[in-house]
């Protein structure tokens, strides 16, 4: 039972020691220790949060970049497509125009040829007429020296003329 009987002396000294420890440590040890630990934890916490934020930002920027690149690529494709279309349109147009021009030129040429042919025919006719007159004149001058001859020549020429 001696073990279970509290002794006042030890109770007193234990109380005193514990109170001294509590007071001294509470004033000089725990605050600085706990503060340092808390500050460190908060620093780590904030650093982690900042890192997370930075990472998120970087990811967002990366996302943005990809989006911009994608858009640029799409635009490029669109422009290329349009350009190709325009090109084919232009070529088509040019071809059509060329064809039309050719057609026109051909038509004009054939018209010119026709006209020239006609002119030439007229010219020829005129020339033939003139020649005929000249020839007739010459023949007449020569042949008409003799009656017989004149008649013969006229007949001969007239015959020839009929063949034409």
């Amino acid at each position: 039972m001696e073990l279970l009987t509290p002794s006042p002396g030890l109770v007193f000294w234990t109380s005193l020691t514990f109170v001294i420890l509590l007071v001294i440590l509470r004033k000089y040890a725990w605050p600085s220790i706990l503060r340092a630990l808390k500050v460190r934890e908060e620093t780590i916490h904030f650093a982690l949060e900042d890192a997370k934020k930075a990472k998120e930002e970087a990811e967002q920027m990366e996302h943005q970049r990809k989006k911009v690149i994608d858009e640029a690529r799409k635009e490029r494709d669109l422009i290329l497509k349009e350009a190709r279309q325009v090109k084919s349109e232009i070529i088509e147009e040019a071809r059509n125009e060329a064809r039309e021009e050719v057609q026109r030129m051909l038509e004009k040429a054939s018209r010119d040829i026709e006209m020239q042919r006609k002119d030439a025919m007229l010219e020829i006719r005129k020339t033939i007429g003139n020649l005929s007159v000249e020839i007739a004149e010459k023949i007449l001058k020569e042949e008409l020296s003799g009656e017989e001859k004149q008649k013969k020549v006229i007949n001969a020429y007239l015959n020839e003329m009929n063949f034409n």
Partner: protein
Amino acid sequence: MKKIILIFFLLLGSFSTQASGEPQSPDEPVDAFGLIMDHISDAHQWHVVDYTNSRGHEVHINVPLPVILWHNNSLWFFSSGHFYHEQEPQQLGNDYVILHEEQFYITGDEGELEMDAEGNIRNASPLDFSITKNVASMILSMALLLLMFLSAGKAYARHGIAPARGFRAVLEPLILFVRDDIARSQIAKDKADKFVPFLLTMFFFIWINNLIGIIPFFPGGSNLSGNISFTATLAVFSFLVINVFAVKDYWKHIFLAPGMPFPIKILLVPLEFIGIFTKPFALMIRLFANITAGHIIILSLISIIFIIKSIYIAPVSILLSLVMFLLELLVAVLQAYIFTLLTALFIGMSTTKSEH
């Protein structure tokens, strides 16, 4: 640190060696119970070592401790060496005092004890505020704690948030453990930090005294944390902290037992009221019993050698007590943890507003 070593050597210098006349006869049966009780009870001197010198005399080396007695409204100071070495009673004003089985009794000038019919001593005892072995080891633990944590505190103030190095790196996980897993896990978040210094002090105070108690040689070996006075005092501190900071809901819960039918209230309120006291009482008994039991087991295992008087049992005995020592190391921290955890739990219960 140097100061502590100096104090240690001063203590060594004050050792009293005492050679007793007759060597113990080897046939005498070993009083294992007396030996064990002697080791786990408090003493007014600090026993260092006994040995038999070359002339066959037994030599006891003890550190005498100051004796402080309160008698007739005044304090009396002695060295405990006088009580152990001299057979005459020491004068205490008009009265005389003797030390009998670590207890002081007021006697006449002959130093005779008066016994009643059942063999109980009828002499009065003065109030004993002596620096006993337990008090001395408690002062040692206080010095160690102050050294540890004041230097750690200074180091934290100097190095700020840099990672802890050296001894601080050992203390830091423990401090964090007490703060996070004892205080913050049991007490409401906004109130937990207020109790952290108290819980930290309590945890380290109990733990270091448990550890000093396990050290089998001087300056350890005191059974302070296995002493009911020590555990009772700490339990009273727990009790005070639990109830002083309690919120209104806690008292309402105890004395009104809201939400219960009246007949049950009649039963419940006294139970709850007793519960206020049984909680710290259980703390007191748990720490006392665990530490004392550990000491008794180790001492018993060692005593087996002397009871059986055979060298061949020694390896078994030593091996078993080694296992017990390792277990005691665990128990030392475990009991400090349990004491602090339950205190925190009860504080948490008394400071939380309950939802009924």
